[in-house]
């Protein structure tokens, strides 16, 4: 094996083992920051030794043993030991758990991973900090990769991660899976981070660094892992379903010149039917668990209506309108109501949709939101009222910050002028 091949092999092992390793060390040290440092030390040790010895048969066990050894040595070498560090060293040394992680109970590894996810996504941290820390600890991504993915300078991300770990230590955030009432809110915090990562990737455009679209894959991987760790949580399966179905359209949603293609105009043959099938299966899993449907399950159900339709005309708009209604009741939001209006317009005609939009006219949450006037314009145009539609499109064009969208809206306004 050449050095280059070996480095890539170590990277692959790291990809598979790092989260489990950090999680196992965090349980022992009760400090995520210390755990990550020790895991990095183990990686350095592997880089030094594996070129001579080859990749061991059980690389995970090797890394854990190396991390423990280095941790104990390093901490003990430090002469001015504070109490906390002495405790950490003692816990690592006294650890009688098998050095063989592969042989350790699967449940235990899973529990550690889940603790790590909940800790990295702790609400004491900002959403950005949670996302960076999660990609670092759970995805095994380097600071450089995270920085490129979020279009941020590397020092910014590095600092964000350092601060996040410090906050967790200062607030003495326990390394545990929340229970009871707390679980729901903490899980929401985790799902928010996973979906944020996904949307960053989804928002990537042609010509961006490849790390940006790779965020979709990272989020999907995190979601799939989470779904196996918390199989009884319908919202987790709902989020996975939503991401699988949205990812299924990645190939179909931009034209060759990079301009966006709207859902109803996409070539459905280019959708990824493997991901659709997986998304529908995840949705079925969520729905089989019963109970009231949460926002992710409902959004996945809406996405599934589109995914099931072989042609745009076959879309079940009444069902989509009903699901938006349910979503608006679960999480009252003017944007959801706007989407419901458009679904109702498709199901019952533009007049019915316009009635809902009229009720939203003075909604403060939608002031400055370009899609409200553009939606009104669209329905007015369909109702044969171009004189009223044109100023709506012009208003939307003023509000949008996207140049491509602006020219498209102005085009529609001119078409309305011509139709008068």
């Amino acid at each position, binding site marked *: 094996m050449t050095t280059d*091949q070996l480095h*890539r*092999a170590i*990277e*692959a*092992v790291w*990809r*598979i083992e790092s989260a489990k390793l950090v999680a196992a060390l965090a349980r022992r040290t009760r400090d995520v920051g210390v755990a990550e440092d020790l895991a990095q030390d183990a990686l350095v040790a592997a880089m030094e030794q594996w070129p001579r010895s080859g990749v061991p048969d059980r690389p995970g066990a090797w890394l854990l043993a190396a991390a423990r050894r280095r941790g104990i040595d390093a901490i003990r070498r430090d002469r001015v030991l504070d109490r906390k560090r002495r405790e950490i060293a003692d816990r690592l040394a006294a650890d009688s758990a098998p050095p063989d992680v592969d042989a350790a109970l699967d449940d235990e590894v*899973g529990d550690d991973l889940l603790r790590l996810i909940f800790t990295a996504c702790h609400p004491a941290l900002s959403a950005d900090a949670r996302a960076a820390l999660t990609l670092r600890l759970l995805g095994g991504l380097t600071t450089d990769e995270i920085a490129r993915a979020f279009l941020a300078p590397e020092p910014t991300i590095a600092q964000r991660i350092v601060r996040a770990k410090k906050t967790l230590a200062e607030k003495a955030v326990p390394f545990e899976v929340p229970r009871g009432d707390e679980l729901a809110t903490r899980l929401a915090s985790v799902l928010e981070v996973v979906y944020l990562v996904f949307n960053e990737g989804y928002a990537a455009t042609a010509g961006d660094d*490849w790390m940006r679209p790779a965020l979709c*894959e990272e989020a*999907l*991987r*995190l*979601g*799939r*892992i989470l779904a*196996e*760790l918390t199989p009884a949580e319908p919202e987790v399966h709902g989020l996975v379903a939503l991401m699988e179905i949205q990812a299924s359209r990645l*190939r179909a949603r931009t*034209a*060759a*010149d990079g301009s966006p*293609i709207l859902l109803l*105009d996409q*070539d459905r043959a*280019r959708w990824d039917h*493997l991901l659709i099938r*997986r998304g529908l299966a995840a949705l079925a899993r969520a729905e089989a668990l019963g109970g009231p449907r949460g926002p992710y399950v409902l959004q996945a159900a809406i996405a599934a209506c589109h995914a099931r339709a072989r042609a745009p005309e076959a879309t079940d708009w009444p069902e989509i309108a009903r699901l938006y209604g349910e979503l608006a009741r679960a999480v009252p939001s003017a944007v959801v109501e706007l989407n419901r209006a458009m679904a109702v317009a498709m199901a019952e005609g533009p007049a019915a949709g316009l009635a809902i939009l009229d009720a939203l006219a003075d909604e403060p949450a939608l002031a400055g939101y370009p899609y409200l006037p553009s939606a009104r314009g669209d329905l007015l145009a369909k109702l044969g009222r171009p004189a009223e539609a044109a100023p709506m499109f012009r208003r939307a064009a003023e509000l949008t910050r996207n140049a491509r969208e602006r020219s498209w809206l102005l*085009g529609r306004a001119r*078409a309305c002028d011509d139709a008068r």
Partner: protein
Amino acid sequence: MRVMVIIKATKDSEAGVLPDTRLMKEMGDFNEELVKAGVMLDGEGLHPSSRGVRVRFAADGKRTVIDGPFAETKELICGFWLWQVKSMEEAIEWLRRCPNPHLEECEVEIRPVYEAEDFGEAFTPEMREQEDRIRAETARLKG
């Protein structure tokens, strides 16, 4: 990236011999590990080639249906997985952890799946056609 992991056939698999309970359990555990790691997208086992057919496309366009079984056992496949991984190396590392899928010597092959980026700047005819269609559609809406 996606890879297809192709499990090659053996004399036993071609004879329809099913793996024993121990191997079934080991493969089950490995599959579970793949699912838990978010790597497994899909996977299926295939019946022996005696239940398969081939359709041969001659250069002149003539199609001939050929019934199995087929010779060259080692080149036949008896199952596949689709994995989502970050690199070929990650796929290799996972495959190193896989139990031998047969009770005898065999080979398993990893092949990367083409992704849109692999086509680079070059338009596929399909993409060009799609673009033309969109242009025509846009023109129709404008007109």
